[in-house]
């Protein structure tokens, strides 16, 4: 395998793993129930969707696919982000 391809995949994996571990470090210890935190929640959702997009574009090779397919995957990312954010605040407002 050409070194550039292998290196690119390795970088993607390292970034994904680092983001996952950093998230853990930022979590408050919760032997007891945590307090609600909208900023943290929305940030986690957005960061998770960023991770998904890295998986899509690097591991699933969406960056090489036709524009219609890349567009659909990006559409899913956007729709999911909007839906989860709206659902979070909508549920609280109910």
């Amino acid at each position, binding site marked *: *395998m*050409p070194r550039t*391809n*292998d290196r690119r*995949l*390795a970088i*993607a*994996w390292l970034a*994904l*793993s680092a983001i*996952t*571990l950093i*998230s*853990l470090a930022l*979590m408050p210890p*919760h*032997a*007891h*129930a*945590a*307090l*609600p*935190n909208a900023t*943290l*929640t929305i940030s*986690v*959702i957005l*960061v*998770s*969707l960023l*991770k*998904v997009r890295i*998986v*899509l574009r*690097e*591991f*699933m*090779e969406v960056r*090489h*696919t*036709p524009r219609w*397919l890349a567009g*659909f*995957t990006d559409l*899913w990312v956007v*729709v*999911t982000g909007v*839906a*989860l954010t709206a*659902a*979070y*605040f*909508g*549920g*609280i*407002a*109910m």
Partner: protein
Amino acid sequence: MSTATMAAEPAPSHVPGQSGMWFFILFEAFLFTSYFTVYMVCRGRDLEAYLASQVHLDIQVGVVNTLVLLVSSWSMARCVQSARGGDLSHALKQAALTAAFGVGFLVLKVGEWAVEIHRGFTFTLNDFSMFYYFLTGMHFLHLLIGFVFLGVVMTQLKRPTSRTQVLVETGATYWHMVDFLWIMIFALLYVIR
């Protein structure tokens, strides 16, 4: 390095694997988005109860599971690129690694469920526990199906045919879906407040 290994990058506008798998992936992704959305609405309506129940989950186990699936996705991607480059032996090793990591996730998940159930965190305990077992259970089913695809991938790599690359990419596409769905499930069940 042989010329064959220089072909690891796909051609521009290449659809990895069978197009039908991509339509399935997108359908499943939007379906899970609907599950996630319902969960978030219900969570918002009873936030304190959901947060109180969330303490039953061990975020460290969730992180380990996430890391395991991420590395399995990495090895699967390397499998695809090696196969495309003509190095089927290396591709097969990467596919075997992917399967091993998948088994690792499976064992951790079943163990986690066993501990949680033993401690009284059962499906019927409350709404959060219902969502937890539903989402992780649905994901688990998809993981099991993923092993079938891995089996096809490894068989193709051992006895290559004219369809080997297409089938390897198709199987890999499905496996990556299992990974990215877990990324979202982990965030929504274990991490968000």
